[in-house]
């Protein structure tokens, strides 16, 4: 219950993006860092699932996450290099990283179907959180047009992942 409560609080904090609570818009270097971090965290979670899961559908989903997020992050790195923007660490990136570490520790204790179910449920939740942040904060705040456009395409990809994760979640239920 306490764990559930704190996870709920964390989710709330992420959704309300504490770093920008004072009305300060995130800067492009911060936005780039957040987007890249979210992608990398999902790749790490997928690699963890590939170590642990034996479920074909879950493994295929995890492989899709590694493949897509690797490609998007590759494009993000190429863009920041081109724009000469240095991604800047920030509270939102740190909160995402902290939450992912806690989730990983929780998932590490699970096995078999319980792991599959928890991993996929978290994938739905994680993509939902990131997509919400992209829509409400990151895309509207991005000042560079190319960064904004990459985030918009990213949002479409990650909305696809969210739906894909929902399909898998229905199957591993």
């Amino acid at each position, binding site marked *: 219950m306490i764990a559930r409560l704190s996870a709920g609080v964390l989710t709330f904090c992420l959704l309300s993006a504490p770093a920008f609570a004072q009305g300060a818009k995130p800067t492009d270097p911060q936005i780039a860092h957040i987007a890249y971090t979210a992608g990398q965290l999902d790749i790490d979670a997928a690699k963890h699932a590939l170590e642990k899961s034996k479920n074909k559908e879950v493994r295929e989903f995890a492989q899709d996450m590694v*493949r897509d997020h690797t*490609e998007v992050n590759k494009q993000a790195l190429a863009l920041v290099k081109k724009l000469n923007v240095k991604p800047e660490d920030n509270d939102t990136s740190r909160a995402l990283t902290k939450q992912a570490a806690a989730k990983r520790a929780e998932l590490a204790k699970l096995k078999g179907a319980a792991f599959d179910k928890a991993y996929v449920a978290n994938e739905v939740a994680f993509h939902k959180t990131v997509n919400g942040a992209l829509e409400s904060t990151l895309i509207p705040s991005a000042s560079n047009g190319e960064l904004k456009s990459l985030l918009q395409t990213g949002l*479409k*990809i990650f*909305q*696809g*992942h969210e*739906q*894909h994760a929902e399909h898998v979640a229905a199957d591993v239920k």
Partner: protein
Amino acid sequence: MTPGRIGFAALVAYTLSSVPVQAETIQVTIDKLVFAPAEVNAKVGDTIEWVNKDALAHTATATNGDWNVVIGPKQSGRVVLKKPGAADYFCKYHPNMKGHVLVAP
């Protein structure tokens, strides 16, 4: 030209003219997770070719299970339409990508 040749040419001409409408290849582009055109009208025997401009892999997967085409990044993939009827399809990796094919007999 010998009578034999004339006969052969006539036969070829006759055969060609009696062939029904030629099967077509209909191209659908995938760009930034959008199938364009999203709606395609085709006939049995036509081929749909998806040209993927994205750097990501996609699929064109019929919801009725008739076909499933994996289209790699910057690649193309095709399917020959064998059955008449309407088919919805989507991308298995990004199910928010949707398309529709109407196949006339």
